[in-house]
């Protein structure tokens, strides 16, 4: 637990603040086909695909919490959705021992879809909205695919932020 708290404070928090700032300044102001691409979510799924379900969930929770605090969304809502995103990305990645980059991108896409759809779903569950916005049918795939594409370059940052090392496979020689 100590290393978890230490990692969150020394790595995840500063990385999250910078990512969030870039997101607020660049991605929140410029929409692509009427959709705000989610850089923070891309980092969450990148962390999930490199570090596994539990660390992905933690990364999603911490970065989502920052997003909630800075973005004035209800505290804990994005944290929960992004936590689920990191966990999903990490879980499906765990099904293959050493996935290729494109397979990791697909896993990240799945995780991002969960994260992006999770926010309106939670808003619906908590009674903040009456129904799901039809725009979701466009927003979720757009965000998911963009996160999947951004996952590969963000993987080293995600890996460092959650404090894991890249797997090294050794040939067993007799």
């Amino acid at each position, binding site marked *: *637990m100590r290393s978890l708290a230490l990692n969150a404070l020394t790595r995840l928090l500063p990385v999250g603040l910078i990512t969030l700032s870039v997101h607020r300044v660049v991605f929140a102001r410029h929409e692509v086909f009427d959709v705000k691409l989610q850089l923070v979510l891309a980092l969450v799924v990148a962390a999930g695909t490199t570090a596994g379900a539990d660390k992905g969930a933690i990364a999603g929770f911490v970065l989502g919490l920052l997003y909630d605090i800075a973005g004035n969304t209800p505290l804990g809502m994005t944290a929960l959705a992004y936590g689920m995103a990191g966990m999903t990305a990490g879980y499906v990645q765990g099904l293959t021992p050493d996935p290729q980059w494109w397979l990791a991108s697909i896993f990240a896409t799945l995780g991002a879809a969960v994260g992006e759809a999770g926010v309106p779903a939670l808003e619906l569950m908590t009674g903040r909205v009456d129904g799901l916005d039809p725009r979701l049918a466009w927003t979720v795939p757009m965000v998911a695919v963009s996160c999947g594409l951004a996952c590969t370059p963000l993987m080293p940052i995600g890996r460092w932020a959650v404090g894991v090392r890249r797997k090294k496979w050794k040939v067993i020689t007799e």
Partner: protein
Amino acid sequence: MFSSLGRRRVIVLVVLTCLLLITLDERGNRAIDGLRSAVGAVLHPIDTATRAIALPVERVWSAAMDYDDLRRENEALRDQLEHMKGNDIEARSAILEYRELLALNNLAARFSYPTLPAAVVGESPSNYQNTVEINVGSRQGVRVGMPVTDGAGLIGRITRVYATRSIVLLITDPEFSIPARVLSTAEDVSIPTGTTVAGSETTTPSGATASDLTSTTTSTTTTLPGLTGATSTTTPATVPGADSTTTTVAEGSATATTTPAEVVRETGTLEGQGADKALILRFIDSLTAVTSIRVGAVVDTAGGISGLAPQGIPIGVISRITPGTGTRGAIVEVTPNAVLRRLNFVAVVMYVPGADGSLP
């Protein structure tokens, strides 16, 4: 790292913590507000640095991609500005008359609250929140609930206030609702600007609607039959697109009277439907209300003690009325005056909801 906890426990812990935080935030918590304020203060210099790096790149990109569009838009805006000059003169004259009438009748102006100018410094990072961040806060006297306008009309209300910044919930957000009033005349679709002169001579039926306004200007001079001698000619302001008329009436030989237009007022609740969607106006008795309003009618804030904004802030115009079917009431769509995607400078109306008539 998590060996002592185990994967499932970590995930359960995350979920439970989030649910607890959602509950605390929904109920309102000062510690959470303080945390938001602190993180905002930490993020501010980081945002400034990021903006300093991103801005040159953004400008180069914008110059390369948007130059032609901006040039076209600039030309269109210049044209529009020329046309608006005419409207401005007429509007100023109408405001002066309005004030004069209010003074004569010992009535207070309906919207006379001071405003605080502010700049939009941030937008919601999420696809599902319709909010903007402005650069004034509690230090400047901003309070939760104050309405915010831009030059065109109401854009939203303050939902969170920090020391030097505030969050504005836009009128398009599904959580936004406000009492609103529809003002229309009986012939609102064809705006009656007629002046009736004794002898049943109607001289100025322009019959133009707001949407019908074009760039052509027609001026007609009507001289009443049999009225000669010294004349008093009034040259009206040139209203772009609207047919203007100069009426020449002999002094002392005819009485000009204005027939008061029958103004229909319907009050309902205006609700947001999400970004880029028209607002929905709901009435208690939608059947009666819908029959008395027309497309193009002006919608403004209703005010009142329970109102969230003072009376008379323009909101938009009715863009569509879909008749009700079966048990479903009619749907009245309102297009806001303000262009919410391009907000740069706004004004906070220093009005505390529920305290109509008193300033904070």
